[in-house]
């Protein structure tokens, strides 16, 4: 069967290992496509996709838009800052209005947890979650795990440390689900105030010392400090965070082993990653960005094609 088990991509939690493998296999083909002289295929030419972003995004929205255009879909973009949401329209009304214009798929980012799940219950179009609050960001987890697989060959038994602001990170949660489904061992590392209270119930290791985490892992996925989501102070200062949890090239070189360094972007250079680490040979950060387009093409193609 070359079909996903779900009609929507709401999160990694509710898709299967077979789904992830099918997406990877399809993404591999699309990666070939985007490296050709003509980077476009006509598969989605009669499909209209709305990118509905209730929260700021540069990378994810560009990546989705590029993936949609590479598949020849028609694309409309919507951002809440310039819309009637400001005038008091509800989420369901906004989306129903967009759908009344005959849209087939919705890619949505929203600051509220569960917003895409709510929509999926009420509307017919395929929905892809491009991040809902601090909950899930499935395509990011797919592109992260795909990038690790591409670099290391497989995820089975690999040790992956997710380092930084775990509490506010949808990337962390989606990554934990995806990594575990693919057989990797997961550790989270960060200051105690930025680790969710019940994180160990997800069967992940918890480490407070970043040096120990780096010694343990094959892959370090470093996350950004999400100041915009922090209403209270979780640590004294960025400078102090950087001293205790920032990663630089010297630390990586001292490990005397191969380590893969990842970051979902945007990087705060000098805070969680120093420039020399981010630009070092350990880093696969720009591969992640390239793979993001291929992964999103695969997800769009597989969801749009499953009409039965």
């Amino acid at each position: 069967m070359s079909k996903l088990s779900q009609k929507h991509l709401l999160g990694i939690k509710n898709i299967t290992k077979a789904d992830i493998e099918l997406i990877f296999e399809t993404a591999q083909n699309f990666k070939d496509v985007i490296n050709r002289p003509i980077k476009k295929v006509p598969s989605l030419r009669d499909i209209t996709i709305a990118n509905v972003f209730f929260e700021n995004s540069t990378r994810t929205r560009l990546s989705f838009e590029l993936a949609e255009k590479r598949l020849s879909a028609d694309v409309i973009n919507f951002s809440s800052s310039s819309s009637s949401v400001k005038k008091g329209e509800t989420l369901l009304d906004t989306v129903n209005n967009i759908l009344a214009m005959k849209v087939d798929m919705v890619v949505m980012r929203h600051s509220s947890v569960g917003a895409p799940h709510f929509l999926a219950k009420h509307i017919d179009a395929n929905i892809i979650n491009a991040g809902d609050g601090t909950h899930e960001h499935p395509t990011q987890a797919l592109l992260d795990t795909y990038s690790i697989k591409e670099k290391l060959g497989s995820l089975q038994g690999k040790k992956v440390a997710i380092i930084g602001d775990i509490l506010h990170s949808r990337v962390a949660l989606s990554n934990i689900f995806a990594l575990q489904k693919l057989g990797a061992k997961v550790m989270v590392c960060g200051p105690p105030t930025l680790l969710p209270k019940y994180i160990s119930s997800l069967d992940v290791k918890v480490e407070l010392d970043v040096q120990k985490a780096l010694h343990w892992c094959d892959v370090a996925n470093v996350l950004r400090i999400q100041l915009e989501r922090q209403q209270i102070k979780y640590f004294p200062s960025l400078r102090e965070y950087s001293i205790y949890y920032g990663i630089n090239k010297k630390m990586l070189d001292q490990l005397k082993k191969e380590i893969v360094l990842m970051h979902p972007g945007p990087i705060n250079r000098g805070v969680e990653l120093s420039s020399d680490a981010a630009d070092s040979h350990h880093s696969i950060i720009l591969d992640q960005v390239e793979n993001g387009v291929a992964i999103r093409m695969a997800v769009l193609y597989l969801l749009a094609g499953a009409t039965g």
Partner: protein
Amino acid sequence: MQKKLLLDSDLLDITLDRLCQQLIENHDLFQDTAILGLQPRGIYLAEWIHQKLCKQLKTQIPLGYLDATFHRDDFRRRDTPAKAYETKVPFIIEGKKVILVDDVLYTGRTVRASLDAMIAFGRPRKVELLVLVDRKQTRDLPIEADYVGKYVDTIDSQRILVELEVQGAKQNRIWLINKD
């Protein structure tokens, strides 16, 4: 299920030898000709023909695989999206003569999609089509093959089964099958 043998191992070999001779007549030493096998089943025949030609001409001929899945015209008209396979074009298509190779020519839709997929790599000087089995009078599109292994009269409820040793079959055989 009724089966009728169209080509056995020996006949298949003779047929492929003949196709190779026809190719040599038109392409001489294959100086600017490349072979492209159509995924998923045309690639085995393409490899086989390529092997025969290279042996006979004592030269290296460019060989590639082409997958037309993303260019098909039946997307969203079937229950599940078609599975894609690897595309590998390790040569410059621009200006080359290209021979597309597939096992069975039926509606012509795969060939149409393949032409689109191929043009994404450049503009070939000339494109030809080689098929092992041509199902006569079944075309949906105005597409015909330049080199044909065997013409077969079929009806819609029949299908052609190509069994090849490289794909794990016991012998190389081509069957006509009645679907019931």
